[in-house]
């Protein structure tokens, strides 16, 4: 097992406090309402802001209640020597949960789940980017989940597409991400972490989750990923629901990008004012 030699890990004889926490029996919602009072088809309120990391070429931050994701885009920069030659551009995606973001502490290095998420994120974004515009160059996308309260991948897809647009990378369309949790015949949009949770002794016919990347103005699906055992009819319903919900996200993305344009020009004009001020006195 690869160990992290650069950091001090905790003593070997430690026990996670979660070992003493009572495990939940069933998905809460099966017995009643969703715990935050939403209807099954409602998204959590979204806060989305572009241009948050000054060093990066483009960046974005998304907050869906307690799911908080930050994304920074660098490049197009030169590809490393190890990459094989291609006339198209390359996108490099790194998805990482911050160590403190989940119920269980994450490691500093990417684990297999995070690597899997990186690939899924890349699959969702690749169809939307004009790769021929930067031949033999690569764009790096770094996504950090600051707090995970479910639907992290969907939030990451939305956030990364806004960051790419903010970086001025040519794109065919923005990508909105949406995920649903399926339990029995229930389809829950934008599940929280407790809704994503499935206990061992709870085995309905349909259980799992679907995440969809959707290009809202081209009406095209860029990627689908599903987990668990789901019947075809139910997954069809889930995908339709995801698509429709992503469509409702589009105005949010648009507004966010427009606002970032506006704040940029505002900042620029302010610096001009300051400049005039200096000249006069």
């Amino acid at each position, binding site marked *: 097992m690869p160990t992290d030699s650069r950091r001090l890990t905790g003593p070997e004889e430690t026990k996670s406090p979660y070992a003493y926490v009572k495990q939940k029996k069933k998905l809460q919602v099966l017995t009643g309402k969703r715990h935050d009072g939403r209807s099954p088809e409602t998204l959590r309120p979204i806060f989305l802001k572009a241009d948050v990391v000054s060093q990066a070429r483009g960046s974005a931050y998304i907050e869906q209640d307690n799911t908080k994701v930050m994304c920074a885009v660098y*490049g197009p920069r030169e590809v490393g020597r190890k990459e094989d030659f291609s006339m198209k551009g390359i996108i490099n995606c790194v998805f990482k949960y911050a160590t403190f973001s989940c119920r269980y502490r994450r490691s500093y290095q990417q684990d297999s789940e995070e690597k899997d998420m990186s690939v899924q994120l890349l699959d969702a974004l690749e169809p939307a980017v004009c790769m021929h515009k930067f031949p033999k160059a690569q764009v790096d996308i770094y996504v950090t989940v600051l707090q995970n309260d479910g639907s992290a991948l969907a939030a990451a897809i939305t956030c990364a597409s806004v960051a790419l647009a903010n970086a001025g990378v040519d794109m065919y369309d923005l990508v909105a991400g949406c995920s649903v949790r399926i339990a029995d015949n229930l389809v829950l949009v934008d599940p929280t972490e407790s809704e994503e949770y499935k206990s061992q002794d709870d085995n309905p016919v349909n259980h799992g989750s679907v995440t969809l990347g959707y290009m809202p103005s*081209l009406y095209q699906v860029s990627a689908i990923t599903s987990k668990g055992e789901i019947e075809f009819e139910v997954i069809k319903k889930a995908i339709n629901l995801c698509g429709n919900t992503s469509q409702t996200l589009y105005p949010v993305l648009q507004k966010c990008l427009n606002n970032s344009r506006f704040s940029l*020009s505002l900042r620029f004009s302010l610096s001009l004012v300051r400049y005039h001020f200096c000249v006069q006195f």
Partner: protein
Amino acid sequence: MSAPMEKVCVPGQRICRHDEKVVSGNGTYTRSGFVYASLAGYLTTKSDKDQVIIEVKTDTELNIVPTVDAVVTTRVTNVNPRFCKCSILSVGGITLKEPFRGLIRKEDVRATEKDKVEMYKCFRPGDIVVARVVSFSSEYRRHNSSFLRKSNFLTI
């Protein structure tokens, strides 16, 4: 300064129908008979003869990378008898944020008497060379140098 009342576009936004009078310029693409924006920025139109060029401009500088036929400014980093390595600093007058690696081969230095080129007499490390990108090789970009420090020959 860009006025806020200009039309703002986001990627994927449909701009107009694509016909003979409309040319899709920078920051746009055409798909199934329509012009769409591919960048987030302001919509600008220019008329050229009887055509209209549609462009989307961003506030920040363009994301530019060296492409074939682009004129680039490079700094020589390493010289040997067959080629010299250089780092590309700017493309067509736009400075790159990070340099790209490039290569000037001996046979690409000038058009005539290619076999008589002596690399050490042409380049020294630190020279600034304006060159045209000839091709993408699997390892490096190759250049045909078109202008040299201290010299007055120009080849393309």
